[in-house]
């Protein structure tokens, strides 16, 4: 049975990303490795996640900038593929993700005599995200209200409560699943939402899937 109203409402928060350039670039894979070891975590975040805020499409063959650069600009497809399959959601935090990226590049370079580098193409330019959280003032207390608001908010709200919540705020299942489980006491629906894989899709696709899960649940409950 759907709990009528949550004691604590879900507060919809969006975000805006200001993109900061670090003024540091890499022309070969050794320089890339060294910089990855040294740049702030906000830079690792920028190059592995925040493109979801900017693109509807993956603007390259892989969903992280390091893999795409290796494959396209350096033309080292092997490293591109190795970095491309990394799923950031498998890591507890960004530092562990950084460690995994470093290990992959080190391991790859240890088998090579010559360090692959860009010849005519673009160097890798390191950036970092400055994410500003912005409360929208919208809140829901029931699943129906939650679904309605979710359908109309800015896509950055989806981003904030999934990517930002999981990767930087340490809420492993994301805010949506957490609220639905704890406040609406709907563990089954919460689990389904927690198991959505946001990494290979777009914010609009995540929104669409969340709404579909809510609708399916509400429809089933209506028949009970």
């Amino acid at each position: 049975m759907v709990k009528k109203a949550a004691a604590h409402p879900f507060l919809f928060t969006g975000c805006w990303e200001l993109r900061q350039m670090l003024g540091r670039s890499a022309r070969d894979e050794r320089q890339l490795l060294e910089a990855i070891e040294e740049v702030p975590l906000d830079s690792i975040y920028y190059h592995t996640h925040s493109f979801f805020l900017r693109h509807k499409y993956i603007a390259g063959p892989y969903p992280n900038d390091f893999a795409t650069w290796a494959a396209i600009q350096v033309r080292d497809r092997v490293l591109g593929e190795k970095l491309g399959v990394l799923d950031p959601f498998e890591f507890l935090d960004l530092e562990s993700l950084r460690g995994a990226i470093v290990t992959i590049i080190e391991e790859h370079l240890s088998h090579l005599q010559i360090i692959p580098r860009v010849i005519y193409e673009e160097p890798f330019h390191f950036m970092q995200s400055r994410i500003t959280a912005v409360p929208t003032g919208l809140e829901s207390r029931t699943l129906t209200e939650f679904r309605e608001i979710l359908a109309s908010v800015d896509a950055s709200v989806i981003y904030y409560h999934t990517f930002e919540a999981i990767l930087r705020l340490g809420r492993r299942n994301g805010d949506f699943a957490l609220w639905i489980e704890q406040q609406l006491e709907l563990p089954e629906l919460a689990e389904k939402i927690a198991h959505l894989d946001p990494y290979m899709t777009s914010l609009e696709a995540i929104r669409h899937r969340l709404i579909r899960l809510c609708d399916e649940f509400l429809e089933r409950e209506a028949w009970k």
Partner: protein
Amino acid sequence: MTALDLYRDVTPKGTIDFLRCLAEKVRGRKILHVNSTRVGGGVAEILRSLVPLLNDIGVEARWEVITGTEDFFAVTKAFHNALQGEEQDLSPEMLETYREINRKNAQGPAWNADYVIIHDPQPAALILQKPEGGRWIWRCHIDISHPQRKVWNFLRQYVVQYDGAIFSLPRFAQRLPIPQFLIYPSIDPLSDKNRDLSPLEQEKILDRLRIPRDKPILLQVSRFDRFKDPLGVIQAYRLVKKHHDVRLILAGGGAADDPEGEKVLAEVRQAARNDPDILILLLPPDAHVEINALQRAATIVLQKSLREGFGLTVAEAMWKGKPVIGGFAGGITVQLVYGVTGFTVNSPEGAAFRIHHLLDNPDIMAKMGEDAREYVRRNFLITRHLGDYLALMRYWMN
């Protein structure tokens, strides 16, 4: 309904309400934009749209323009070329002219605001007269990825005194001790250059320009400048013409006061000689609605630049749902997601191949145009630009 509300129908879901939330913390703050011209050029075009929107959302925005002599603008033109990598000889007298005009301008209007955005090199030295308080940010719109070092070092002494800098592409970033931000320029979807045109309005404009509509149109809108490669476009057209009966329109302007431009235009005319299917249109700088109609009439839009700052004509055409083939240069590479929102190419042959490919596949062309428009909606509209400035203001409040 406010000015910002007019954008509700053209922006992604929830954007306008979200921008108002983003503005909440900076409401009542003062921002001043300073550049060197109120008409002509991309910066003025952006500020004309952006400043009213900032005011509409609750920020007190002003736009001031510095004044200068012919000598001063000759110096800053040389700066511009040198920063884009061309070898220039700047004498000590020229540098003094630059400093002197900036000193004189500093005596002008009140340059105080919570945030002062100085656009491009012309007013950069105003920083020396910065009053107490306020954040000063240098906004560079030009490609300074390979600047002539002497000129950059001269300008750098001013830039490092700012609180931050903004560039249009990551590769334009410099080694600077101040924070550097990436903000893409943008187009205004409601301006004359980009607003919807009724079929009747479009027909009238095309009739006035004497554009026949009996064949697919390939269009490039740009100055007659070697870096825009109009001759390469003609070469690509000739390769395509062997298989497809198309018409090429090269539309541009502003060549009259530019000796190099006149020379390029003469070469283009020579190359187009005896071909009635190549139309060369010389348009005045305010021919916004004409460019709009031409872009809407085009089958494929080309921007085959060899060098480019950002190339917003690409976003303009994409916004009209057109597939664009662009040179692999500057900001074109971030607007055209290869094979999705357009194609980037490196030669006339590459351009010809992609034109041919698209003309043979109208379905791909339609899908690409659709995706291109959505991509612009999310990344290159003035509303996104507004959000970036609001976020920048909040950055310095934290």
